[in-house]
């Protein structure tokens, strides 16, 4: 309620957007911003884009456009190509052509993987302390023996790989 009172006090006129402010100097017609106009796109599934590629034609191109209004058999091949290039940016062949970007991507990925590897090696060498004693040879073999005695994973796992008769790993 109060807000509407303030609104009427201030007056609707003075609440303008910047575009409106600009329009006040141009007889009330706002120039359309570029981003509001239809754009040209090179897309496989859009054969006829909304606008032609070349927006502002040179004098030569304007003359060609005039010639286009007459019979098309009078046009030379070069003129036809020029008319095409006015209307479109890339041909379908150019559009669908692959690039060599994948090499850059692959190279970048491998480079950063290598860099991470270097960092990890540096860390292991200079930063980390000793590993726990439970990773020593004796401990691991005693651990494995206990696992086999307990018959851990006897169907498909570790105990299935051990030959209990011959007391060795299965071949």
């Amino acid at each position, binding site marked *: 309620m109060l807000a509407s009172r303030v609104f009427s006090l201030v007056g609707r006129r003075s609440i303008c957007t910047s575009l409106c402010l600009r329009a006040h100097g141009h007889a009330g017609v706002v120039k359309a911003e570029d981003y509001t106009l239809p754009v040209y796109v090179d897309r*496989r599934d859009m054969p006829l884009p909304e606008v032609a590629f070349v927006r502002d034609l040179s004098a030569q191109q304007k003359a060609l456009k005039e010639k286009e209004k007459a019979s098309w058999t009078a046009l030379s091949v070069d003129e036809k190509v020029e008319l095409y290039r006015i209307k479109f940016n890339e041909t379908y062949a150019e559009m669908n052509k692959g690039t060599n970007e994948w090499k850059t991507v692959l190279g970048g990925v491998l480079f950063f993987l290598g860099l991470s590897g270097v960092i990890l090696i540096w860390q292991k060498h200079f930063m980390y302390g000793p590993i726990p004693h439970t990773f020593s040879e004796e401990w691991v073999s005693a651990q494995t023996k206990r696992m086999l*005695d307990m018959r851990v994973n006897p169907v498909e796992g570790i105990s299935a790989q051990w030959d209990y008769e011959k007391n060795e790993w299965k071949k």
Partner: protein
Amino acid sequence: MRRLLARRMKFHLFGAFFVSLGCAALYKFGIAEPRKRAYAEFYKNYDPMKDFETMKAAGVFECAPPK
């Protein structure tokens, strides 16, 4: 560009069907069947009491010492 979507869709529909079928078949005959066979083999001649005695002798049971 004629029938672009139809062509692409047909290709991908077939592809998806056969790829998923292939994955399922691969899993069944690569993993599931061998696993079932391994379990059948294991339990064919399994004697739990003998297994218990050997484990007991090895000394892994806290409540059933080797003696």
